[in-house]
């Protein structure tokens, strides 16, 4: 296709639980653009901005899906380690972005995310102390599938929220 894009899946890792609240598309977009400017300058920002959007956000799990042009995804990916904080509503929270997966379509990223969330749930399962929570997570794990992924991802997040 002439208009090829790359989708970069990242996870926001932070020590402060309040940082998750300010995960919103504007704040994240600004942070990423700022990092690109610092590392690659005006040229880098211009290149990456052509088709740049934050496609999907998940404040519970801290998952972010960014979109950019295929020609400039290297500029974007190499600037992502330089994001140091997220700022919104006047509050600044230190954090970092962990790149999980780069894909050519949203679907591949979704598949990866489901797989990733599954392993995350497994990990949470190990740290479960409560039998009830354990049951809850096991149920979500067993009911993971691609077809109803939107609602499944939401179910998994609620479990993360109650953890």
């Amino acid at each position, binding site marked *: 296709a002439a208009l090829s894009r790359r989708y970069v899946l990242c996870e926001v*890792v*932070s*020590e402060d639980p309040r940082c998750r609240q300010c995960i919103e598309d504007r704040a994240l977009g600004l942070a990423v653009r700022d990092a690109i400017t*610092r*590392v690659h300058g005006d040229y880098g920002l211009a290149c990456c901005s052509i088709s740049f959007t934050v496609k999907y956000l998940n404040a519970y799990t801290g998952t972010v899906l960014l979109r950019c042009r295929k020609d400039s995804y*290297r500029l974007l*990916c*190499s600037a*992502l*380690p*330089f994001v*140091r904080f997220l700022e919104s509503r006047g509050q600044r929270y*230190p*954090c*970092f*972005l*962990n*790149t*999980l997966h780069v894909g050519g379509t949203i679907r591949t990223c979704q598949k990866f995310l489901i797989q990733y969330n599954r*392993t*995350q749930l497994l*990990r949470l399962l*190990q740290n479960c102390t409560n039998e009830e929570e354990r049951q809850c997570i096991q149920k979500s794990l067993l009911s993971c599938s691609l077809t109803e992924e939107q609602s499944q991802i939401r179910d998994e997040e609620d479990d993360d929220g109650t953890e």
Partner: protein
Amino acid sequence: QNILTVCFLVGYSAVALNHVIDFKEKKQEIIKPVSPSELFPSLPIVQGTSKRIKVLTRLTLVVSDPSHCNLLRSTSANIRLYDIIAVFPKTEKLFHIACTTLDVDLVCINVTEKLPFYFRRPPVNMAIDRGIYFELLYTPAIKDSTMRRYTISNAISLMQICKGKVSENKVIKSPLELRGPYDVANLGLLFGLSEGEAKAAVSTNCRATMLHGETRKSACGVVYTVKKPRKVEEEETAVPACKKAKTQA
């Protein structure tokens, strides 16, 4: 401990706890390394695999004088207990000595300042033949803009000389300075490595360094005996440390 939890989360399969010895200060004794099992009663499982994370101990020697190297040659028992030994040479002569004769696994290069010496090809090639890798830290690049410029320019010149035999590392004081392995490989692209080399800088080269440390600890890397509680096993590790991965003891 918090830092290590984040490491596990992000997907590192082996972490080394570093202990720095700076010889400029008063006489320093090499102390016994803190055993990882004292710090963590149970090591959590790495994200994405089913194995537990490995915590190694590492010693960094900051040498600014040839007499400091005697410590490495001595048969101090404590040195043998560290899994990885790294040396940080401050002068060109020491860099030469470190690459050619010293028994270390890593040579650290400070990329945040204008280097006091230039790299020359012969000692670098000798180090590579011996299986020693060069290390550069990338944490300063993340924090500060001038550091970033120095880091990138020094890193690029380092890469050109040592043909990519580099392992990228960090010294972190807070969990927020950590970056995931995928991101560190992307930083390698900034430093002038190709994609394959950048990935290797995070994975295979580090692994090779760990193996090099293992062979250094065992008897010349030929025979490595391990006594298991149930039975006695003998394993042979190949002499060049970068050959196949060792089978689990």
